[in-house]
């Protein structure tokens, strides 16, 4: 059956998968392989484009997550403590992602336009750390979501 509630839920879950999947793929698959296979100059060129595209994907997914999440609250017709904690964590994750892509990522993007720069490696380390924090928090959010919908089973 195709209902508005199901569509909203589908978009919500898809947005989580996209945001989390993109972050994990970048941190654990793409970045290590690029470090092993490409020379520094070429790696930087690839990374700056990846960061920009990844930012578009992750930030759009987070925006979809927030709006469908607020609609889901209405469908749930309740706001238990777990949901309030989840909303706070979503705000933290969105803020961290904005800082990651809109501030640190943008700095990497700008500095790397002229090729390798000694200021870039520490920024990349910070970018990766924030990404891992975002990924870990999203996992907590997913767990809290499960306690809201499947909590009664356990």
């Amino acid at each position, binding site marked *: 059956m195709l209902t508005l509630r199901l569509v909203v839920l589908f978009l919500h879950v898809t947005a989580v998968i996209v945001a989390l999947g993109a972050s994990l793929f970048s941190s654990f698959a793409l970045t290590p392989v690029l470090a092993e296979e490409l020379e520094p100059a070429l790696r930087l060129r690839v990374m700056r484009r990846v960061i920009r595209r990844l*930012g578009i994907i992750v930030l759009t997914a987070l*925006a979809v997550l927030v709006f469908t999440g607020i609609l889901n609250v209405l469908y749930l017709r309740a706001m238990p403590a777990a949901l309030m904690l989840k*909303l706070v964590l*979503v705000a933290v994750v969105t803020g961290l992602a904005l800082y990651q892509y809109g501030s640190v990522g943008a*700095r990497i993007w700008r500095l790397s336009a002229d090729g390798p720069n000694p200021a870039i490696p*520490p920024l990349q380390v910070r970018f990766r750390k924030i990404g891992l924090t975002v990924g870990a928090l999203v996992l907590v959010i997913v767990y809290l979501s499960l306690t809201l919908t499947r909590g009664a089973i356990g």
Partner: protein
Amino acid sequence: MSSTSPAVQPAARASVRSPLLERLTFLALLIGLVAAASYAEGTTTPLRVFKPALGAWLDAHQFYLMEGGATALGLIVGIRIGRRLAAESVGARQGANSVMILAALAWAPLIHVCAMAARLGWSGRAGSFASWIVGREGYEAGARFLRLFITVIYFCKTAGLAALAGLALIAIGVALASSHDAVADNAPAGS
């Protein structure tokens, strides 16, 4: 940290300040708080004596004014926090106009959605607060304090949900501007 380019940071930080957003924050806060205080304290009753038409209008609309003010305040605060977090981004500046348009479009539907969601769940332990404040201040004053307390909780919850939406709007703005940058960057990189 020390890795920040000193030539880049001050310019980016300066661009984040927006007098328009500052004025809108003040306006939303003023409208929201005045409407909330009026609703909680029932100030329309004396107003109806002196200005019946205005009192009747305010009586009918003060709740919506409070919801609208809280939603606008939350949206603007979310947008301002988001802009500050994405301060280094070209997107935060270029996408600012599109974010404001999106916020203006989203405001009316968000009033209803955020207000409905804010009615759910935690209400500041109003039950135990009610018995405590009535026991302390007496029934009449206690009931007034309780109404004010519940209104403040409702106002804050509505604004909080709207702030989340404001952060999401900034995320869209940064993503839009980033896609614009990415397309622009592809041309010289490919040639």
